[in-house]
Every structure is written in structure tokens, then in C-alpha cells.
């Protein structure tokens, strides 16, 4: 922290300074250069995700705490090196397939109003609104945290879409944003992913949907336990006893 950053004569309650609209939601940010935020070493952003909207995968240079103001949905947080523990059942073994192309992914977490979600610096996440009302979240980025070795400028690194930088002033972010893949050579990425260059051009997301997109088919189909399975109480325990009996299982 530089000297004099906290010599504040007067504090104010602040509204967001910047707003960017996308296909299925909006992102609003408070000016990170405001003296109050510079003193605290934080940056703040508010996301509004419309029903059936998907906040595209991204990571930040600072650890984040997200508070869910309203709505409900699910989020996937991809930790490097963690296994894909949510797996589709193997099919087609009799057809000589090894199950390689059955989907599998890392754990998915549900969230609802009042939840706090913690995301370390540099760890990618996405969010989906599966409710009927908008999801509103407020995110604090702790740019002065030791996990951030860059400067105190809040940075979002986008893995998909073409979102604008919401922390930059209006006049600076008129042009369309770009994701990380758009910066690499198409040929290099084709070698890295071992796919054709047509598909790499899709990764570069040269469309106008921005950073929050509408999901096709009105629902995001992913592998996860059903809500009834995870939230039913003693009823489900009885049910699982029945299941065990049916499958001939006994507790050890």
C-alpha cells in the first residue's frame, strides 16, 4: 500500500460506476480507483444473471468472496489437478466402447440466497441461473491479498465469450473484449487440443453475446445429484435402506 492512500476526509456510500450489458445479464462495477477502495485494497462487482443465463468461465488475479443477494443456481469451480468426480454412467461397453466419451467433470455446487462462495486467485469458475428470477451476486476481489502478485488492478481472465473489462472506464472499453484463446495462434491451439482449426475459431468466440449468455434448450444439463436426493431427510434414508435390500447390500 502506498502512503496517503487512506487519508480520507469523508466517506460516502457509493453506487456502481460502470455497467455492461450482455445477452443474459449485466455486470456492474464500482470504480476500483476510488480512494475508499484503494485504501481497503479491494474491488467490487455486481452480477445480475437472468433465468437460464450462464456466466462464462473466468478467473481473477485476486481471491474472491461472492455473496448471493438473490436467486438460486449452480456453480462449477475448476481446481487444477482435481479429478472429474461427477461422471456419467458407462454406456456402450457391449458395443466395444471404453466409455471415453461419456461426460465427466469436477464437482458442481448449488447456491441460493444468502450463500457465500469463496474462490482462490487464479481458479476458474462459471455460474448458471436455474431459477425463475434473476440471480444477483456481489463479489469482493481482495487485490491486496498476498495471493495476488500482480499490481492492485483487478483483472478478470475470460476463458470463453468476449466480455468487456468492467473495471475500465466507459470510454476505454467500447470495443468488444476478447478471451484468452483469441490471443493465441489458431494453429498452435489446434496442436494443443488436437482438434481442427474450425473448432479453435469457435473457442475464440467472435460473437456478440458477451460474458453472460443464454443457454440453448432452456436448461443446462449437467451430471449432478437430483435436488430431491440431496434434500430429502429421513424419508430418503428409508428409501436407501430399501435400495440396499434390493441390491443385497449390508452395512459392514
Amino acid at each position: 500500500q502506498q502512503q496517503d492512500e487512506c487519508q480520507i476526509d469523508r466517506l460516502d456510500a457509493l453506487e456502481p460506476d460502470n455497467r455492461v450489458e450482455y445477452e443474459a445479464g449485466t455486470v456492474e462495477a464500482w470504480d476500483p480507483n476510488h480512494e475508499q477502495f484503494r485504501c481497503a485494497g479491494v474491488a467490487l462487482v455486481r452480477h445480475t444473471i437472468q433465468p437460464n443465463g450462464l456466466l462464462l468461465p473466468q478467473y481473477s488475479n485476486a481471491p474472491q468472496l461472492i455473496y448471493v443477494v438473490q436467486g438460486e443456481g449452480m456453480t462449477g469451480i475448476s481446481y487444477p489437478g482435481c479429478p472429474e468426480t461427477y461422471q456419467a454412467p458407462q454406456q456402450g461397453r457391449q458395443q466395444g466402447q471404453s466409455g471415453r466419451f461419456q461426460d465427466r467433470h469436477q464437482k458442481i455446487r448449488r447456491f441460493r440466497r444468502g450463500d457465500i462462495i469463496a474462490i482462490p486467485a487464479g481458479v476458474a469458475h462459471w455460474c448458471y441461473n436455474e431459477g425463475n428470477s434473476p440471480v444477483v451476486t456481489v463479489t469482493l476481489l481482495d487485490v491486496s491479498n498476498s495471493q495476488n502478485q500482480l499490481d492492485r488492478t483487478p483483472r478478470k481472465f475470460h476463458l470463453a465469450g468476449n466480455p468487456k473489462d468492467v473495471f475500465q472506464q466507459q470510454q476505454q472499453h467500447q470495443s468488444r473484449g476478447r478471451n484468452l484463446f483469441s490471443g493465441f495462434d489458431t494453429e498452435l491451439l489446434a496442436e494443443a487440443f488436437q482438434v481442427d482449426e474450425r473448432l479453435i475459431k469457435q473457442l475464440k468466440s467472435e460473437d456478440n453475446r458477451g460474458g453472460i449468455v443464454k443457454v440453448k434448450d432452456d436448461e443446462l444439463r449437467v451430471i449432478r445429484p437430483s435436488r430431491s436426493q440431496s434434500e430429502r431427510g429421513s424419508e430418503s434414508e428409508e428409501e436407501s435402506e430399501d435400495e440396499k435390500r434390493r441390491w443385497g447390500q449390508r452395512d459392514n
Partner: protein
Amino acid sequence: GIEETICTMRLKENINDPARADIYTPEVGRLTTLNSLNLPILKWLQLSVEKGVLYKNALVLPHWNLNSHSIIYGCKGKGQVQVVDNFGNRVFDGEVREGQMLVVPQNFAVVKRAREERFEWISFKTNDRAMTSPLAGRTSVLGGMPEEVLANAFQISREDARKIKFNNQQTTLTSGESSHHMRDDA
């Protein structure tokens, strides 16, 4: 008791020995890591090191450094390197040759490739347990996401999302040459 702890502490380690490689793919290359787990003094210094060797046409899969900067020094040969910032801008696209230094800031995405000759480098990392997050390959960040998320994010079919997730089953290092053949199959 300081002589029992600090004075006798191991301060030296050789990182060149191919037999010590942590990641190795024949005819592609190898990576050897020295961090606070195998050289405890590095915990004090909060630094670590990676030694890399790439053979002709091989590449280090694109990735970002999760918790550290990476300062690359070219030891032998030359490698093509691209670095991308948070705006998706390519902030470096060129060769790193023997004797040259390149700083890759934390979270910036980077890819390295050896062209017509072998490339050796050393990366100093500003964290004693530096971590990377791959963008492609078996352990990639996209591989950890549901097909449907990728299909919607990139406006591609589920079949194409599967290719993105599963086509390259290698981690960290991959052969550029073999991928040309696989691309035809994809």
C-alpha cells in the same frame, strides 16, 4: 541448536539430471521441478524453479501460473513463446533464445514450442509451491467443466465439446507432429 537446523540445511540441488524429471514424455520432452517439498530452504525464500527440455516440434500445453510469476531464461536452443494478457491481447509472440530472459506475469496465459531444434529453459517462480493450470490436455480447466457448459460457452455441438475435453489425453507436454495426424482423424 541453530547448527542443527539452519547451518546444516540442504542448499544445493542439481536440476539437470534427466533421471530426476517429474514429467517425461519420450521424444517430446521433460520438466523437473524444485520447490519447497524437495528443497525445504525454498519455503523461506518463497521461490521455486522449473527446468524444461522440449524436443523438436514439441510443445508445452497452454497454461497459466496460478500463484506466481514465471521468469524464463533460455538455456539452450530457442523456443517459440506466446503470452496472452487478461484482455486477450498477445503481449509476447516471439522466440526466446539462449541467454535471453522473459517475464510471464501471474495469471497470464503462455504456450511454448520448440521448432526445428531442441529448446531448454529454466523458469524461476515467485512461490515456493508454484502451481499451473493447463488450458488444454487431460487435466485442463476445460476438461473439468461439463460438456454442456462448453457447448453453450463456445456455441458448439456436444460432440465438439467432447473433442475439446478428450482429444488430447496428454498432460503438460505434447508432440506437435503427432497432433497433425490426429487432427485429420478428428
